[in-house]
């Protein structure tokens, strides 16, 4: 039950992400090796030895969703575009089609099974026999196909369509409005059947993983919503007030923007849930600590945003255990080394750009004291990142990469070698041609801790003799920050700090590809393109080859330092000791069913 949709991390520099998921109740792995560099080690599961009781399970499990504004209330993962909505509707099972293993690889046993055929370039999705919606209707082949119609419809409000879907035959014609249906999606035993075959022009190894951009992995209740025009779906009561689900719980009530309540879905095909009632409430992040300390909630929604300062407040609570895993996100530093050619739709490196020198970029990274900064302001919940793949991807993340630990001597040496020297008694280094060098640092306005971090970066850069200043002399509001970065050619920002939230399939082409508009630093090289292509080449159907390429890419990106890793973070929750079976490992596909309670009151 990987939540497919990820909150954009652009809004909060600390990415807000959603990953709900998890594993069988009492199988405990100690924390995955995922967080070797973290100073605090959190476990992905809470190994509660107490016994659950029927009386306890008949009470209400209380979940808090820490957020400063009301949730938007779109239950449909095809249409929602934020983490809060997927958090508060999570007990419904997020309408996920497939189960996944700990690497988010799609496995059998979920609502449907997936078979990919390299020979025919098809994906065959077969629903299980007992798949039902929470109103008792069967889940049909049409329900698997309908999300594609919603996503690609000309009048949709969904942001999910990507050019990768054009690989589905007939998709381009449907997307442009020329065809009424998608010819490449067929139903061998009819729309009411259980089988869907999707025909592609070519298929990609990334399709083995949940969160890829070729295969949509949730269902839509076609019969239930077919009379609502697609443009009005997000506003309809079928999506907002009385949505139906395929997961372990059915929705009892939603109070707009505030709370949802749930009870077991008797039509659920999987493991029957034990707890009889669940309520999820939005709680202001200003007083989430107080709410937990006064035992109002059993845990905060897995994936809800909890900060390092919250950890500092809560870590010593007796009745709560802090459970977490590395987040599907990372903070990074980007360097502006080129522009985006709007005519060809390609990113182009400029040899003469201010940041074109590799030594300069590396030196700037070595000058930063990210270990100390994350320790001081993250309270153990963030730590220096060593690569551009977060450790949640246990297989792909290269733990042996060093990244950029503080090394002022090396930084200075790199600058000297490249000819960035102090000339004519100046306090600052000038560029190799002897010209004055002022570097502009773009940073988004955020918390006071972030402001302090930015000041520290500037200080460190000044230490190695680089005249770095904040763009415009101050931090930038989020919208103007991204507007500036996304303009095809800009010289206001030379280096910037930002973050990405990732889907559970980490191919980075959308972010750093030649044609990617999100490649905001415009770093392009033959080697980079080659490596990213190889991640999904024919050979990459072999998992170990794919892993090797991912590791090679991480090393290459670090060596080039055009986009450099900043920090990783935990996504974590305080869990009350009356809760049993809490486990956020991605392979715990029955997260909600595996929960039980050991006491009638929050302890």
């Amino acid at each position, binding site marked *: 039950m990987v939540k497919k949709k990820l909150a954009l991390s652009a809004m909060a520099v600390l990415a807000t992400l959603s990953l709900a998921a998890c594993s069988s109740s009492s199988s405990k792995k100690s924390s995955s090796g995922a967080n070797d560099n973290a100073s605090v080690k959190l476990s992905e599961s809470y190994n509660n030895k107490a016994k659950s009781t029927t009386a306890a399970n008949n009470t209400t499990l209380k979940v808090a969703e820490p957020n400063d504004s009301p949730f938007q209330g779109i239950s449909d993962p095809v249409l929602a575009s934020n983490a809060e909505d997927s958090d508060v509707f999570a007990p419904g099972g997020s309408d996920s089609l497939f189960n996944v293993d700990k690497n988010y690889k799609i496995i059998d046993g979920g609502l449907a099974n997936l078979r990919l055929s390299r020979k025919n370039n098809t994906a065959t999705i077969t629903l299980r026999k007992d798949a039902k919606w929470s109103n008792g209707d069967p889940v049909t082949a049409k329900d698997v196909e309908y999300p594609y119609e919603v996503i690609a419809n000309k009048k949709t409000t969904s942001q999910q369509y990507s050019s990768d879907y054009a690989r589905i035959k007939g998709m381009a014609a449907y997307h442009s409005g020329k065809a009424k249906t998608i010819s490449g999606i067929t139903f061998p035993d009819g729309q009411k059947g259980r089988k869907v075959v999707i025909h592609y022009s070519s298929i990609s190894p990334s399709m083995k993983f949940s969160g890829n951009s070729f295969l949509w992995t949730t269902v839509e209740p076609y019969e239930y919503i077919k009379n609502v025009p697609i443009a009005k779906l997000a506003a309809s009561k079928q999506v907002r007030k009385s949505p139906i689900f395929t997961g372990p719980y059915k929705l009892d009530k939603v109070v707009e923007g505030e709370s949802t309540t749930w009870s077991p879905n008797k039509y659920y095909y999987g493991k029957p849930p034990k707890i009889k009632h669940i309520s999820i409430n939005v709680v202001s992040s200003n*007083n989430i600590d107080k709410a937990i300390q006064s035992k109002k909630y059993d845990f905060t929604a897995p994936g809800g945003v909890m900060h390092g300062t919250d950890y500092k407040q809560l870590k010593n609570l007796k009745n709560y255990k802090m459970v977490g895993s590395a987040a599907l996100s990372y903070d990074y530093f980007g360097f502006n080394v080129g522009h985006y050619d709007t005519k060809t739709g390609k990113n182009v490196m400029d040899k003469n750009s201010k940041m074109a020198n590799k030594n300069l970029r590396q030196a700037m990274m070595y000058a930063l004291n990210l270990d100390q900064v994350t320790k001081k302001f993250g309270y153990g919940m963030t730590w220096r990142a060593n690569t551009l793949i977060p450790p949640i991807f246990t297989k792909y993340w290269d733990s042996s990469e060093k990244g950029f630990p503080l090394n002022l001597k090396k930084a200075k040496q790199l600058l000297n070698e490249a000819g960035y020297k102090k000339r004519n008694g100046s306090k600052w280094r000038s560029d190799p041609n002897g010209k004055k060098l002022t570097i502009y640092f773009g940073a988004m306005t955020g918390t006071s801790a972030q402001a302090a971090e930015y000041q520290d970066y500037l200080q460190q850069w000044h230490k190695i003799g680089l005249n770095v200043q904040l763009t415009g002399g101050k931090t930038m509001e989020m*919208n103007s920050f991204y507007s*500036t970065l996304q303009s095809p050619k800009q010289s206001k920002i030379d280096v910037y700090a930002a973050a990405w*939230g990732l889907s559970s399939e980490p191919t980075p082409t959308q972010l750093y590809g030649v044609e990617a508009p999100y490649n905001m630093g415009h770093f392009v090289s033959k080697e980079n393109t080659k490596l990213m292509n190889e991640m999904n080449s024919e050979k990459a159907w072999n998992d170990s080859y794919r892993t090797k390429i991912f590791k090679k890419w991480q090393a290459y990106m670090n060596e080039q330092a055009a986009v450099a890793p900043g920090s990783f973070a935990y996504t974590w929750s305080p869990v009350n000791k009356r809760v049993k079976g809490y486990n956020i490992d991605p392979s715990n596909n029955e997260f909600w069913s595996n929960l039980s309670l050991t006491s009638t009151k929050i302890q």
Partner: protein
Amino acid sequence: MWKTILRRVLIMIPEVIILSILVFLLAKAMPGDPFTGSINPKADPAQIHHLMKINGLYDPWYQQYWNWVVHLFHGNLGNSYQYQEPVTRLISSRAANTLWLALLTMVLTYALALPMGVFAGRHEGKLPDTVIRVYTYVTYCIPFFVILVIGIWIFGYVLGWFPTTGSISADATSGFKSIWSRAYHILLPAILGALFSTVNIVQYLRSEVIDAKRSDYVRTARSKGVPNKDVYRHHIFRNSLLPIAAFAGYSITGLLNGSIFTETVFSYPGMGLLFVNSISYRDYTVITALVLIYGILNLLGTLLSDIILSIVDPRIRIE
């Protein structure tokens, strides 16, 4: 007077038109667009571009404005980009929440402040006056945000007397139970709001009462032998209400403004947060709709204040 009111309303029309053009232009002048916040690896820029296009966001401003006006006259304020639902529905649900909270806060504020003001004025310079004055200054000095956080902590979490989030509890289904649940949820924020916003009313009232005490008509009333109680009730109180009546119109139309602080701390979905969020998300349709509503309400507020004033004080006549 009706003529005057009609004239005032007619003048409001060009004012509203100018306001709406200004709002429209300023909203578009902000950097970013409703989809800037959506950049993430899963949102294809081409799709974002497509969404911008079908929403007419690339059209020249006068065309967008014209479309907006045409829709407005059909009672359609557009769809919120952020919430993906009609703006009218979104605002009306938030407005109801805000209205109840603000109404209760206002009633409590007046219920507290009026007696305090009169009492302080009556006992000018004595102990009760000092106590009330100190109270109003202290409450005026403390940032409201701090009060809310402390209030929710003590009465919500430590003592557990009041609910801490939302506008209604999830198990309140219908009828009396849901009304009670709503009332219960707004009680704490309303009490805190009332306790800490008395300063204006108390100070105005107090100084008016002090002035009135020394005026000729009070002396006349006293010398006629009118009992002290009646002097205060009929002569002083009514005349002292003038400055308060002057901003009563604004208070009434201001009920819909909402409080960002209260809404954030109590996770209470209201107008204040909606406005602020719509600005940071560049949710143009919501921003323009809200500013327009606030603008009209303010104009109405001025008018209402004048009308109230003329009722309270017969010396003032709108001509």
